[in-house]
């Protein structure tokens, strides 16, 4: 599903963010990505999203070689991925329903299908009664769940979450992680970048550690309670 081979990313200002990353992730896996600030985790996600291009090495996602992906095909490629960020990034002037529906409108989904799918998604994420709330009427955990519903709206194969619980209190964080695991069980490949040690240890999933721009550890189970 996802294959990084000797991936190097040097930013235009000279910062070497990734320095030879090799990583293979299978279809349907759940992977935590951990590492200290500045280690290169977000850069890894940006490369996956094709927001940045690798300086060298190859990245192959679901059969697509990202270095050979032309500009015009990037939108089509991104529809295979759903993204969730630490800061939610919802439209403040749209309701929960509209935020999710917008992601589908943007890719030209017929409105009949949108009307069917959005309520179902909101229910899956336990937001059925919040459909008409605006982001500022929702808690952090609820906003993040709206963002997750939006990420899933176009039925991506891969869900990427970059520190999804960074702005959420610990109790709610558990709920978000539970949902991510549930989404993984529904058949999606899920990548979660996180600093939450307890959660990583609690879930006993595959953990990939990034240090100084490369993979320093890759194992199943807890990372911090050696």
């Amino acid at each position, binding site marked *: 599903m996802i294959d990084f081979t000797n991936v190097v990313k040097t930013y235009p200002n000279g910062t070497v963010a990734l320095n030879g990353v090799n990583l293979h992730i299978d279809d349907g896996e759940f992977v935590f990505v951990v590492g200290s600030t500045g280690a290169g985790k977000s850069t890894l996600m940006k490369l996956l999203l094709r927001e940045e291009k690798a300086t060298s090495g190859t990245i192959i996602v679901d059969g697509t070689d990202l270095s050979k992906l032309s500009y015009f095909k990037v*939108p089509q490629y*991104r*529809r295979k991925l759903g993204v969730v960020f630490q800061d939610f*990034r919802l*439209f403040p002037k749209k309701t929960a329903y509209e935020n999710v529906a917008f992601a589908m409108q*943007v*890719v030209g989904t*017929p409105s009949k299908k949108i009307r069917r799918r959005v309520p179902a998604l909101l229910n899956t994420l336990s937001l059925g009664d919040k459909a008409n709330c605006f982001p500022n009427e929702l808690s952090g955990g609820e906003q993040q769940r709206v963002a997750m519903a939006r990420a899933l709206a*176009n039925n991506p194969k891969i869900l990427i979450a970059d520190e999804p619980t960074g702005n959420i209190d610990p109790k709610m964080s558990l709920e978000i992680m539970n949902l991510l695991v549930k989404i993984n069980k529904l058949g999606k490949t899920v990548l979660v970048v996180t600093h939450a040690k307890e959660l990583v240890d609690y879930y006993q999933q595959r953990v990939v550690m990034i240090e100084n721009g490369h993979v320093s550890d890759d194992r199943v189970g807890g990372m911090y309670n050696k």
Partner: protein
Amino acid sequence: MKRYRPTYFIGQAFSGLWRNGVMSFASIAVLMSCLVVLGSFTLLVANININLEALGLMNQIVAFVDDDMTEDDISRIEREIKSIPYVGNVTHITESEALDEWIEQVGEYGDLYEQFRDDNPLPDSFVLEYVDGAHYSDIMYNLGRIEGIESIRDERSLANTMQSLKNGIMLIFSWFLIVLFVVSVFVIINTVKLSVYSRKNEIEIMRYVGATGTFISLPFIIEGALIGLTASMLAYIVENFLYDYIQKSMADVVNVIKIIPLSDIRVVLFFGFAAVGIVTGIIGSTISLSKYTRS
């Protein structure tokens, strides 16, 4: 398959215009001024052109016959003129025809000159047309040798003066126009940039969920086109007033100069303005979007 509502794009474009009201207004004002100058300049040149044509000044020489020539002399002179190499059409204008033309040109009080009909002070004349300006001096030399020609009016020099006047005007206005258009495009670029910037976060999200470049840019392109369209409609109105005013004040002063009637140019003016305005708007917004549609 793909079903995008056009109302979405147009709605977004209008809200962009509204959100950056001051900048939108500035863009429209600058582009409008630019279009008015372009229009005025084009109309001026067009009017100079029809006057040049109407007067038929380009390749003509008028030879006036001595007043005391007999009918026989006049037909001899005509024969001799026609035999000059490179002379094309030769038109004989009798003194009576010359008077008719004079009366017509004077206009309102022309009838006063009817009294000269029997004792006509105007001479007979011949209008020579020639094709190639290179033979001009040969023709003038040969004309000068014909007995009975009193004077020769070389209308080419007047035409030249008008032509070079026209060229001068065109040169100055061309530069002026280029500068104005660059300024217009620059202002539109910044207006649309501001609009793009205020929707930076939206654009980012749209990109993440897989919106195409076209989907993201279309509202901004329409916004630019709307600026252009509004500017061109205002310019059309202003130009109409301006032209009408000038035409009326000219009509009182001189009626020798021909002025293209407004009704003849309305349609061209309207569509010309709309086309230039919209294209300028689209160019401006496309340039300001290039950063977002790449990478």
